[in-house]
């Protein structure tokens, strides 16, 4: 499978004008790849994730092309997207704790959902039970109401439901953010197991927590202020990033075991730009230590080494000379 995104641009409509939340995103995900999507709050990663599966107002599709397994994905058309949802592309939402109907038993809800998608529940029941085992949930959870389940149980239940039809692409939106550290580990490992057992083909894991992504992702894509900054295999991103933003991001992460008794935690000075009227060109320009004149033009997201994409004029310059 592969996901190919070309020039995807999605804005948010507000009374004050359009918020340019996602600008000309071009990238791809290979079959079997778990790609992490990281960046600060408001960088557009959730917009990207959601626009691929449920593009509703106030989001507005401006331009772009998305292909999944070679087929055009009509993300701007809510009706036509229905045939792709759940089967080709699926999502584990951020609000997994509230994602299930509170007045329906979980099993009944799954039955009705499958029925409405013309999938036979009875045929899929053994597979469903197998998946429940995989996430260490008892079979009788199907007979419970969401309110009877703990947060962790609901999270795992939603994971099972979302992957029931073995989607080609699974979008996992901040699935570890609301959990404690040990649960985070368990959920993250479950995601990898899903991919390994082919419950989903590839995954896009959205998180602001790079350390989690480091554990499970094959590659990581960094976003800032609606633009793609860098994408590379995980080791490369963490140990030898090329984009100035990524470099500062990685270096501002605290390290376990290191004491900062005298030194202070280095952050990135400044604030992200408001996206109602963002600056022209590279949006990191104003906080970038190595920005220069050319940065007023939008740098393209180019491959400088195999599998390593960067959007930075400085790096292109350095690469050209190398």
């Amino acid at each position: 499978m592969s996901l190919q995104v070309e020039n995807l641009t999605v804005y948010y409509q507000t009374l004050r004008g359009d918020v340019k939340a996602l600008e000309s995103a071009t990238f791809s995900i290979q079959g079997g790849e778990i790609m992490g999507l990281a960046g600060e709050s408001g960088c557009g990663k959730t917009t990207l994730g959601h626009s691929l599966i449920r593009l509703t107002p106030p989001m507005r599709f401006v331009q772009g092309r998305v292909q999944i397994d070679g087929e055009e994905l009509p993300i701007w058309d809510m009706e036509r997207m229905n045939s792709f949802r759940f089967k080709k592309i699926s999502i584990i939402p951020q609000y997994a704790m509230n994602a299930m109907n509170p007045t329906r038993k979980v099993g009944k809800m799954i039955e009705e959902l499958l029925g409405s998608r013309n999938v036979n529940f009875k045929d899929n029941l053994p597979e469903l039970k197998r998946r429940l085992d995989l996430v260490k949930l008892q079979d009788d959870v199907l007979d419970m109401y969401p309110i009877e389940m703990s947060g962790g149980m609901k999270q795992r239940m939603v994971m099972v439901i979302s992957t029931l039809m073995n989607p080609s692409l699974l979008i996992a939106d901040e699935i570890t953010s609301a959990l404690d550290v040990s649960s985070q580990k368990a959920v993250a490992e479950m995601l990898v197991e899903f991919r390994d057992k082919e419950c989903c083909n590839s995954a896009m894991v959205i998180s602001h927590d790079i350390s989690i992504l480091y554990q499970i992702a094959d590659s990581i894509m960094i976003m800032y202020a609606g633009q793609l900054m860098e994408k590379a295999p995980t080791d490369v991103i963490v140990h030898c990033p090329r984009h100035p933003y990524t470099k500062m991001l990685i270096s501002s992460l605290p390290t376990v075991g290191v004491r900062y008794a005298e030194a202070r935690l280095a952050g990135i000075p400044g604030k992200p730009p408001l996206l109602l009227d963002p600056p022209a060109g590279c949006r990191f320009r104003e906080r970038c230590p190595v920005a220069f004149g050319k940065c007023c033009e939008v740098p393209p997201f180019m491959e400088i080494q195999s599998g390593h994409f960067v959007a930075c004029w400085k790096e292109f310059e350095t690469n050209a000379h190398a």
Partner: protein
Amino acid sequence: MRRYFGRKILIYGLTFILAATIDWMIPRFMPGDPIANVMARIGAVVNPAAAQAMRDYYTHIFGLDLPMWQQYVNFWNSLLHGDLGISIYLFPTPVTTVLMRAVPYDLFLLIPSILLSWYAGNKFGAFAARSKWLDNTVSPIGYILTATPYMWLGILLAWLFGIVLGWFPIAGAYGFNLRPHLSWTFIWDVLHHWFLPFMSLFLVGFGGQAIGMRNMIIYELEADYSHYLEALGAPRRLVRKYAFRNAMLPQITGLALSLGVVVAGALVTEVVFSYPGIGYLLLAAIQNQDYFLIQGCFLFIIIGVLVANFIIDVTYVIIDPRTRRGMTGETA
């Protein structure tokens, strides 16, 4: 669940005791002398000795010659025996008999209008929430209806359909030339008289329910579980079905809360149409200063409302599956 019903019954019990006590207190603590009023009503008796005898008689009948606490105890005693005293206005009919004659008319008016306005209003409100265009054209109707005073709608309907168009009669529960008996003429006549008062109660309730339901549906459609279903490609009708079922629950509790308003509405409607229900009776009792009848009407109304509340509570438990698992979905 036991705890849920236990609480409810406690509150209803307290409410009943409080209401009955208020009922008992009012004639005794209000300015004015009920005996003098009764005497004036019965007719002036010139002979002072006779007048005094009458006064003593009535004071004794009302139990006003006993100490307060004893009057209170007697009150509860007779209440629990179903004795509400004797009506002055319709002397010598016992109050209970008078009331029981009026209750069927009330039920006949209230039950269909409450049930139908709830059902139709909810369906209509859900329908309005389907699209923005529908919403903008249909919601104002709901707001206007719910803002309409009950008696004005009654007057309007009576005038328009009763006088101007002459399609319906506007007074009484059945024609004055008929006696209640089981025949098609009578039944048709009863329905004929019943229709306009029923309509005015129905329309106002309908508006309120429609608005409430529309708001609830929109709230449910914006809930996380609705978004999740949409993200998994569920068709609109499944999402709407879930939203509707979930929105119904607070609508049921809302119905219980609106009962007081509906009863008041029924009261004025009966006045407009001279429909012989308890409301109409209460007004007649007040105008004739028949204290026993007033008290009786009030008690009946209270009991009716409490029973209705209880029925609604039971219905809620049946419909909300969570309460059966020992969790309360809604705490009143």
